[in-house]
């Protein structure tokens, strides 16, 4: 037993007629090209990772990178071709139909890109749906659903039909529905991709607010790197079914593992993503300037102050104890340096 809520061990998903046999023959050495020649498409290639309780893992990748497929393996909407998946220590792939339904009814919630609301049900009925399906009494379900309606700020619209709502509102319904059974694990499949930029930002903030309150274990899929940076505790970047890098946003931005990852990080405004802790040096006994900054500050907020100093600046933790130093040149280097190969 580990404390990981979701745990994947070399998960493969290969589409095609002889997928299983071919995977066995490949002996752990799956190459997308050779598979494609034989009529199989590799969706997920050797994915191993853990998500611990209350953590938000964002899986980022362009279309066709296998991110949605990975999510569907973990929610077992499709069966993985190979590997092992554990949900709270339970072997997901060995679950029987009934146990799987039990698991989904109590532990999992999922939000979809195209909202996937039931067109014939009102907002309220949509949200109450998982509860009704589970067998909760109608009155209790409706009351609970009404709480959810309030949670996502749709009060007054509970008797509307999905078609009468805007995209943002529809996704609020989708979010409320996925939360109705109070699941521990929350899957979100590009929930904000179909929304306008302004609405998207609003929903992201709303989502962070919710997560602050609910502390779910989350797998969040997106194709938007900025979104990933904004939301994630850790980011997994996928390409052609392979997880290229899995790390905290700061580490990915500072140390992209592959050329592919680097392409995304180049354009990122680092001062907005990184915090002082990410760039500070070890504490030294050198004489420091009088200014002290908290290690949790985002660089952008304190850069001006630091740059106005000549000497290194002390970095303090919550207890005002010095844990590191930052020299002004380090800030300049972080923000402007190392972006392009030959700069």
């Amino acid at each position, binding site marked *: 037993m580990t404390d990981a809520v979701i745990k994947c061990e070399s998960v493969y998903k290969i589409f095609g007629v002889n997928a299983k046999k071919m995977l066995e023959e490949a002996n752990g050495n799956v190459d997308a090209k050779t598979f494609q020649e034989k009529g199989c498409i590799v969706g997920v290639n050797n994915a191993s990772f853990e998500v611990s309780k209350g953590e938000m893992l964002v899986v980022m990748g362009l279309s066709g990178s296998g991110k949605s497929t990975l999510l569907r393996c973990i929610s077992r909407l499709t069966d993985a071709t190979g590997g092992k998946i554990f949900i709270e220590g339970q072997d997901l792939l060995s679950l029987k139909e009934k146990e799987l339904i039990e698991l989904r009814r109590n532990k999992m919630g999922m939000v979809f890109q195209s909202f*996937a609301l*039931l067109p014939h049900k009102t907002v309220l009925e949509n949200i109450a749906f998982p509860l009704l399906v589970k067998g909760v009494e109608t009155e209790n379900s409706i009351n609970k659903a009404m709480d959810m309606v309030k949670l996502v700020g749709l009060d007054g619209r509970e008797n509307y039909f999905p078609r009468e709502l805007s995209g943002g509102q529809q996704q609020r319904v989708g979010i409320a529905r996925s939360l109705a059974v109070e699941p521990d694990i929350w899957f979100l499949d590009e929930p904000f991709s179909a929304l306008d930029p302004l609405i998207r930002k609003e929903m992201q903030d709303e989502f962070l607010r919710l997560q602050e309150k609910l502390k779910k274990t989350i797998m969040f899929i997106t194709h938007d790197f900025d979104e990933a940076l904004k939301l994630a505790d850790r980011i997994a970047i996928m390409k052609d079914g392979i997880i290229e890098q899995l790390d905290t946003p700061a580490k990915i931005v500072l140390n992209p593992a592959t050329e592919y990852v680097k392409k995304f990080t180049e354009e990122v405004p680092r001062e907005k993503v990184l915090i002082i802790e990410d760039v500070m040096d070890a504490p030294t006994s050198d004489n420091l300037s009088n200014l002290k900054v908290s290690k949790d500050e985002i660089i952008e907020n304190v850069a001006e102050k630091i740059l106005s100093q000549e000497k290194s600046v002390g970095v303090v933790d919550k207890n005002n104890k010095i844990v590191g130093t930052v020299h002004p040149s380090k800030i300049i280097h972080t923000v402007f340096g190392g972006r392009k190969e030959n700069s």
Partner: protein
Amino acid sequence: MELLKKYPKLFQWLFLLVVFFALCFAIDVPETYKFIRGQAEFIKDPNQSTYILFGKEVRYYAFDNFWRLPPLLGWLPIWINDGLFFLLNEWMPMEFWDSATQEYKTRPLVLQISRNITAFMTFLIELIREILLGGVETIVAFTSWNFVSAYPWAKLPGLPWTIVAAGAAILAYKLSGKGLAIFAGLVMIYISVFGQWKPSMQTLSFILVAAPLSFIFGLSLGVMAYKSKRVEKALYPILLVMQTMPQYAVLVPAMVLFGIGDHAAVIITMVVAIPPMILLTLLGLRGVSPEVIEAGKMSGCSNWQLLTEVLIPTARRDILIGVNQVIMVCFSMAVISAFIGAKGLGWNLLLALNQLNIGLALEAGLCISLIAILLDKMSLAWANKQTDYFGNLTFYQRYKNTIFFGGAVVVGMILALAGSFFFKEGFNYLYEVPHNKGISTADFWNKGVDWIFDTFFVYIKAFNTWLITEVLQPMRALYLRMPAVATLVLVVGAGYIIGGIRSAFTVGGLTLFIALSPWWDRALVTTYMATFGVIVSCTIGFVVGTLCQQNTYTTKFMLGICDIFQTFPSFVYLIPVMMLFGVTDTSVLIAVIVYATIPATRYTIEGLRSVPVALHDAATMSGVTKLQRLFKIEFPLAFPHMMLGLNQTIVFALFMVIIGAFIGTEDLGQYILKALSDKAGGGKGLVLGICVAFIGLIFDNLIRTWVEKRKKHLGID
């Protein structure tokens, strides 16, 4: 050469036509050829040739094989017939307990099964019928005739018409609201006051059994086909043939299996109504977005919940069209099955048409159409109904409808009771207005018809004569002049040009089947009538559709009209045309045209509407005039959809042509009608039906293949 490269298809077509006409001229009409004989007739004739195949003797008139192929399939109907007879009377005899005579009886299995189904259907129909009209059959079913004759009180009393009318209105109110309630009430009152109560209720009871059963079976089979590829593959060819099989043709074999009467009618109706229901269910379920299904699964649905709560409701739109079709088919069949002895409005309608009593026919037709519209609207409202969770309802509000219905029952009974004292002459008008004791407008209509005839006789006659001698006869002669080989070449060639080798084989096979059946000449006549109807319908539909589409209101209006016209049972169309043109080919053709114009118009409008707005705007901004836009943008893009309309138009036209046999035509329909009264007609009816279905399928295949290619070419879905 340049031209050839630019339009390769055009030259292929030209080449095909040249070959076709060359064949037509090269092959002479044999001197002995005479149409009406057909090739296999009922009478023995020394001029006939014979052959024996599969132990069946087939007689036919032999011609040059290029002119008409020999009817090598002539044994098929006889064989099917004998097969049916064998199944029914000899195959697998078993011991069955007979409750009537209290002893075991030996009976063939199939006969026993068909008897059981028959008994079950009869029971259902009688139950509903007796709730509405009263009677003893239901009680007899549980006891015996002796019991009923011993106790005269043992019978279902039947509801007074006032209660049924109130019930219908309250149900309509509950489902939809005031508007529908008023309509329901008025329809019921109309039926009663005009003395059509009894036949209407008989028809209604027939439909209330046939429609739900068809719906349930169609939905379940559709779901099964959705879940299993194997089921779908097995069902698909049957569905395809049934889609274009005229309803008439099913009557005959079913009659052999299940005898005559209401129960047989219900079974036939189900056979006809289930295929479109299956297809539309399948279409709807296929259209459910995968994310919605996933959402259902992630909400923790079991398979059953996923089906009932997610899949079927989400596919509701198409399934509802299916329900609509089921109801339409049921009413159509309610009339057609009068041929095999179903009681009700259809029977009256048929009788009236037979006596050329247009007024009576009109009344019965109006009643049946009104009930059809009412049921259609009610089923729609039922499917769209919503639940209110927050209504803090009082007891009265919650049970308002039940209370009202209870009240209506009491009041109705009191009225009926009062009526029995009030009306001394034996007819209790408050219980049931007897047939032909109500108000009748028949005389008025008959006089109207007479007046029209007296006033316009000359013009109608002139038009009639002109149409028949100048258009129809030459066209018919042209069709019959085609040598069978030339026709085959034409069809196969068209198949090849449009869809390649596969299509060529399919349509060639279908044509060959008809050519080898004994009814090639008849099939040609059917095709000629259908062609004429389709050409006129398409022209009208295209023009009317295009004109209406220019304006939102007219579009809506026209689609509404199409909806209403579609709800009329097909037979009803024969009434007004007979009124005007009497018993001639013109009548049939005009009925065909009116009936087939509905899909032509509808698909034109829908096709034009489906042109993306962005393209519309882009064209306008390029500075095109309205006409240019229509011809350069809208027509080319809408054309594939409009061609699907053509497909429907052909099917509709074929149906009507076959039904037209009732007025008197010389095509396949006439033989189907004949087979109905023929003791050994089962096989014949079925094969004739298949021939008609195949004519439809030939066109269906060609058009669909073309549309798919064209859509791919244009990049529309």
